[in-house]
């Protein structure tokens, strides 16, 4: 689609604006297995495309979206965005003039049915008779044009595979693992299955026990899940409006001085690059926290304009239907100067969280969330289930005591790239 004539039309009316077009196609196959009989559950194919239009009149921004690509419908959407702009607050927004192409290509291709067959074989060989697995191939591209001359085209393809076994002991337990890859031919399916089983077995037939003074390590998906609720605390909008723990704390040391948190635009463990955000801003690699000190909040185009800051390239659109949200692409946790997890006598590895979405107050830091996992005590692995983890998360992040020596990348709104981190100061009650 070429939207340049519509952008010119917006400019002709002495207005500014941008048009974001996305086109996503996806093929997904899911299998299920009950009583050792794998079967195909569903086969889906989707091609979804549409556009989001922002019009800025005297600094006031309005938004509209649609998926009908005839002239009349697009012009109607521009008119809607223009009407909406009457209501916005005036901001000194300057649209970027970035030009660029960003292409992430597959390194190999694979038949997703074959991937699922292989997964079935491995589970059945391990006498797992109840499981589910989904494999998807997704191609997405987006195009941004604006009245300042920006023209960015980004395309990406990837395979993703998610597996969820149900393991049995006295009772049953389920857990999941997944992979996102550009190279499905070399996907380590055995590792994928083993990791899912490790997680499912970890808390099987566990009990809720009180564990005093034991460090807690969140497994990679749970750590990423936790940060999907905490990262918003670094949003410039929340910091400036007093809605964040970090409000008024710029340059103060607030977390462990072993911990740094950096936004990145690429990382070897993350498929693809993120050189441009969905507003046309170059994604800036910046530290949010450097050696424990809060050094910078992040800003999208509108929030940067509102608070007189430079945008950091965090304007994300999860669909053409939504206005950009301030959400980083890659959040990289760096730990310096601490021993490895092997140095700990014992710790609780958390492999499942319950109730995190309302059990965590990111402003005050107070949390009380349910968890399952395994107590790793030398050679002993003791399953733990139904415990409550509580404390103040910001205090706890001041007590980082060890970290694993390898990093994992998990998509959770943002990609979270981090080693496993051991934290003191969490109360574990059964």
């Amino acid at each position, binding site marked *: 689609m070429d939207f340049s004539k519509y952008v010119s039309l917006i400019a002709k009316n002495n207005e500014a604006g941008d048009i974001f077009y996305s086109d996503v196609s996806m093929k997904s196959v899911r299998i*299920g297995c*009950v*009583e050792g009989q794998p*079967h*195909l*559950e*569903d*086969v*889906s*194919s*989707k*091609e*979804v*495309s*549409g556009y*989001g239009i922002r019009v800025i009149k005297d600094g006031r921004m*309005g*938004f*509209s*979206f*649609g*998926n*009908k*690509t005839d002239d009349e419908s697009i012009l109607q*959407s521009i008119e*809607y965005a223009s*009407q*909406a*702009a*009457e*209501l*916005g*607050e005036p901001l000194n927004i300057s649209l970027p003039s970035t030009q660029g192409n960003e292409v992430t290509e597959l390194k190999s291709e694979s038949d997703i049915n074959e991937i699922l067959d292989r997964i079935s074989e491995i589970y059945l060989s391990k006498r797992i008779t*109840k499981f589910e697995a989904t494999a998807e191939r997704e191609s997405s591209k987006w195009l941004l044009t604006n009245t300042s001359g920006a023209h960015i085209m980004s395309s990406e393809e990837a395979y993703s595979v998610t597996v969820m076994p*149900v393991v049995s002991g006295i*009772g*049953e337990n*389920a857990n999941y693992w997944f992979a996102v890859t550009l190279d499905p031919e070399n996907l380590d399916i055995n590792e994928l299955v083993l990791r899912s089983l490790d997680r499912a077995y970890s808390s099987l037939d566990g009990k809720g026990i009180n564990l005093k003074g034991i460090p807690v390590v969140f497994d990679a998906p749970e750590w990423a899940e936790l940060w999907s609720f905490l990262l918003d605390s670094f949003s410039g909008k929340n910091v400036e*409006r*007093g*809605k964040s723990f970090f409000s008024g704390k710029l340059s103060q040391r607030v977390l462990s001085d072993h911990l740094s948190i950096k936004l990145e635009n690429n990382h070897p463990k993350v498929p693809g690059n993120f050189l441009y955000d969905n507003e046309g801003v170059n994604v800036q690699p910046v530290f949010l926290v450097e050696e424990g000190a809060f050094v910078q909040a992040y800003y999208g185009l509108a929030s940067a304009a509102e608070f007189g800051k430079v945008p950091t390239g965090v304007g994300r659109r999860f669909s053409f*239907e939504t*206005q950009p949200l301030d959400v980083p692409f890659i959040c990289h946790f760096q730990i310096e100067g601490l021993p490895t997890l092997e140095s700990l006598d014992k710790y609780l590895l958390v492999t499942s969280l*319950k*109730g995190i*979405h*309302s*059990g965590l*107050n990111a*402003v*005050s830091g*107070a949390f*009380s*969330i*349910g968890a399952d996992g395994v107590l790793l005590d030398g050679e002993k692995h003791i399953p733990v289930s*139904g415990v*409550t983890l*509580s404390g103040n998360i910001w205090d706890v992040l001041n007590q980082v005591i060890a970290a694993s020596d390898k990093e994992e990348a998990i998509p959770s709104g943002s990609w979270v790239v981090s080693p496993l981190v051991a934290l003191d100061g969490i109360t574990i*009650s059964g």
Partner: protein
Amino acid sequence: MFGESLLEEVGKELNKFPHEFFDVYVEDRSDMTLSIGDGKLEKPSMGSVFGAGIRLIHNGITYFGVVDDPSLDDLISMANTLGNRLGNNSHPSNTTFLTMKMQGTLKGTSWSKWNKLDEAETYLRAIDEYARGKNPQVIQVSARITQTISKVEMLNSLGNYAEEERPRAHISCSIYSTDGENTEVGYSVNGKLGGLELLEETSAEKTALDAVAMSISKLKAIVPASGEYPVILAPGPGGVIFHEAVGHSLEADFIRKHVSVMEDKIGQVIGNSKVTLIDSGIIPGEWGSNAFDDEGFPNQETILVKDGVLISYMSDYTEHLIGNFPHSSNGRRENYGCIPYPRMRNTYIEPGHDQYEDMLSSIEKGILVNMLGGGQVDQATGDFIFDVIDAWLIENGKITFPLKEVSMIGNGLTTLKDIVGVSSKEDLKISAGLCGKENQLIPVGCGEPYVMISKIFVGGD
């Protein structure tokens, strides 16, 4: 939209292929949103999308395709694409295909359409003013109004043709308050199947002050000692416990996959005789209601538990075919791009004959729960944990202190048996929420009158 005769053409095309079931779901949806934050109007938005999802089920396998902004030719082409996926060994169907227009069980009522974004401006500004004027400890006010109008038409392999306009309006408000040391958030949320008359039914003042009261009370809240307490669930949002801890376990796909604690329990006593649990899609104006399900069948009311005895699971047509469950019109989907699954509608505890005041006075030390947050449930065991957003301590029959950092931990089946009081119909309230399953969010109602549970473990200090 296409209308009955054009969709019949698509149905005839799908009918050429072998199938147990097929359906076509066409949706033309328009959204409007206006927000306020920091005293400023934000993110004004309006837009629309049009698309269709086609599903063909053969040998228990679902073949699903999505078409954006479709023409009739696009739909017929997708029908053939899906049919051709069945492979060469599939024998074509040779039955004739005729359509019949269905009448919905829920009768349409008049509603007030939000035509221009600025019609909601006054309401949002009033929320901001009421909240800030009520208490100087209020530091931030965020509120949002959305209206979604979804026009759908559906055709399925039984020949059912259904069309419906589904307007939904929603208000949400978050208030941040501080005492200089701590910052707490209070919420109020309301939604209905209908339009902007919601703004008249729920005044800006009430929306603001409910959230202010919650955030201010949390500043003074104490953390209770962990332990077992008698609990009274207040009408409305407390009902999420029955949705999560009982309702999901009764969805037919979980039963078929042997991952539900409710498997093989039809006809068994699973709760106190005071417990009757209903899932209804036909309560006028309620957030989770529709005239039809999302597979082309008139909606229903389903009694799940009657006087403590499990009566029914919730099934869509697919699970009816594959798992032989009685069909209860519970097939729902987020939008045209999604496959329907068995989902709840408005799930609530039927009122009983007890009095709230009697429940309260019977408690020496317990907890009144006004609002539950999200929770998580292990479907296989029924074990749950819920976070409590708004709770108060009960001491010697009186409500004393607000509580914070409270969670409720238990088991759905045990909790149903431990219900010892259900108040009368005047107290029944159903609250609007969003239910997530299979990466789809759909509007659902959860509710109850006052419900007393004799004991439940409360996680606190």
